[in-house]
C-alpha cells in the first residue's frame, strides 16, 4: 500500500510522466470514438415512429429524437464526421501556415512584406464573418466548411513559424553550418524543419477545436453541411425546435459531447506542447 502511494506521488510530481499519460489517454479516447464510428450499426439512424422522443433509458442510453432515431448513433456518427472534417481543415491550414511562414522568413524582402500584410489582414477581419463568406463562396457543404476553416486559420501559426525561423537563421550554429559548406536546402531540411515540427504538430492539434466548432457553428446556422448528414451542428440546430417541449436530451447530450471532444483536443495540444518543450516544465 505504501509503495502504491509513493509511486502515485512520484507520478504526480513527475510532470513529464503525467503529460505523457494524458496524451495517451486523449489518443485512446479518439481511437475509441473512431472505432465506434466504424462499427456502430446504421440501424439507429433509421426512423422508427414507434420509438419517438424516448428519454434516455437502458435501450437508448442517449434517448431518441422526434423521428425515433437513436441519439447515441447520431452523436457518434456526428462526432466522427467532425473529426474527419477537423483533420482535413486543420491539416490544410497548417500546411499553408508552414509554407508561408518559411517563405516569409527565408526569402525576406517583398515576399515577406506581402505575407505579413496578408497575415495582418486576415487577423484584423472578424473571423466568423470571413468564414461564412468564404465557405459560401466555395459552394457550401463539407467542401465549403473545409476551405473556409483552412483559409481563415493559418495566420497565427504562420506568424509563429516565421518568427521561429528568423530567430534560428540568426543563431551561431546555423551561420557556422553555412561556413562549413552546408547548402541552404541542407540547412532547411536538417536544422530548420526538425526544429519547427513540434510547432507544426502542436499548432495543428490546437487548430482542431476551432475547425470542429466552426463546422458545427456553420452547420447550426444552416451554412454548412446538408441537413441529412449526421453532424453535431445539424443535431443541435434541430434540437432547438424541441427544447421548449422538454426534450432536454436532444440538446444537452450532443452539446456536452461536442464540448468534451473539443476540450480533449485542447488538453492534448497543450500536453504535447509541454512534452516537446520540456524546458518550460523544468523552468
Amino acid at each position, binding site marked *: 500500500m505504501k509503495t502504491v502511494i509513493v509511486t502515485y506521488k512520484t507520478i504526480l510530481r513527475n510532470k513529464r510522466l503525467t503529460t505523457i499519460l494524458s496524451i495517451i489517454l486523449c489518443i485512446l479516447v479518439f481511437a475509441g470514438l473512431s472505432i465506434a464510428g466504424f462499427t456502430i450499426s446504421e440501424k439507429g439512424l433509421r426512423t422508427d415512429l414507434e420509438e419517438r422522443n424516448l428519454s434516455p433509458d437502458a435501450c437508448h442510453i442517449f434517448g431518441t429524437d422526434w423521428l425515433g432515431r437513436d441519439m447515441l448513433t447520431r452523436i457518434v456518427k456526428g462526432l466522427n464526421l467532425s473529426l474527419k472534417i477537423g483533420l482535413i481543415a486543420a491539416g490544410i491550414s497548417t500546411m499553408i501556415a508552414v509554407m508561408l511562414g518559411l517563405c516569409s522568413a527565408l526569402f525576406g524582402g517583398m515576399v515577406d512584406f506581402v505575407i505579413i500584410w496578408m497575415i495582418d489582414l486576415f487577423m484584423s477581419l472578424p473571423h466568423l464573418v470571413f468564414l461564412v463568406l468564404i465557405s459560401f463562396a466555395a459552394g457550401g457543404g463539407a467542401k465549403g466548411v473545409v476551405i473556409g476553416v483552412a483559409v481563415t486559420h493559418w495566420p497565427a501559426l504562420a506568424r509563429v513559424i516565421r518568427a521561429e525561423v528568423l530567430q534560428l537563421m540568426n*543563431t*551561431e*550554429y546555423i*551561420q*557556422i*553550418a553555412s*561556413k*562549413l*559548406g*552546408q*547548402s541552404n536546402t541542407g540547412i532547411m531540411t536538417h*536544422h530548420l524543419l*526538425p*526544429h519547427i515540427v513540434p510547432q507544426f504538430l502542436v499548432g495543428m492539434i490546437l487548430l482542431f477545436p476551432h475547425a470542429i466548432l466552426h463546422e458545427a457553428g456553420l452547420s447550426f446556422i444552416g451554412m454548412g453541411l446538408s441537413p441529412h448528414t449526421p453532424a453535431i451542428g445539424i443535431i443541435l440546430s434541430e434540437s432547438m425546435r424541441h427544447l421548449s417541449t422538454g426534450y432536454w436530451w436532444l440538446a444537452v447530450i450532443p452539446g456536452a459531447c461536442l464540448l468534451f471532444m473539443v476540450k480533449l483536443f485542447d488538453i492534448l495540444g497543450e500536453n504535447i506542447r509541454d512534452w516537446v518543450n520540456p524546458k518550460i516544465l523544468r523552468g
Partner: protein
Amino acid sequence: MLEGRNLSFRYHPKKDWILKNISLTVSPGQVIGLKGMSGEGKTTLGKIMAGYLRPDSGFIQVDKYPLPKKGVSPVQMIFQHPELSVNPKWRIHKILSEGIAGNQTLLMDEFGLSPSFLNRYPHELSGGELQRIVIGRSLGKDTRYLIADEITAMLDAITQAQIWHTIMTSIKKRNIGVLAISHDENLLNRICDDCLHIRDLNN
C-alpha cells in the same frame, strides 16, 4: 596567406566607424594574437576575416582569391560559447559530421576525448569538452585558417592550457594559420608568433 586589406566597418551608417582602414595578414602555420579593450572591435574584425560580415571597404583574400560566397570556407571561426555553436538537438557525431567527412574516432583521440561522447547530446558534455568538439569540427580538410575568438575565456587555467596545447599540435600538423583573439596577455605571449593590439591597427 590570409590577408585583410584596408578594412573599414561600422554596424550602421549613422554610427561611428568601429574598424578604420585595418590591414593584417596571417601566414600558414603562424599564430597571430589580437588583443584590445572590450568593445574595440576584435570580434567584429574576426567575423569580417571569416566572412560572417562584409566590410564597408577593403577586402579579404586567401592566397590571392576572395572568400567563397557559397560552399565550405577555408577560414573557420570559433566562438566563445560552444553551446551556441552546436545544434542543441543533435548528437555529437552528427554535429561533427557537418565539418568532418572522415574518421571521427581518430579526431576524438587527437582531442583527448572518449569516443563514447560521440553518442551524447551537447548538454551532456562540459563546456571544455564541447569546445574541443567545436574546434575539431572546424578542422575539416579544406580549413586553412582559424579565427579563435576568446575560445577559452570561460575555462579554468588547466583546461585552457590543455586545449591550446592540442590546438597547437593540430595546426602545426595541418599547417593551419591562426588568429587568436584574447584579453589574456599571458596566454597570447605563450602561443603567438606575433601579438597585435587592435588600437595600433586602427587608423
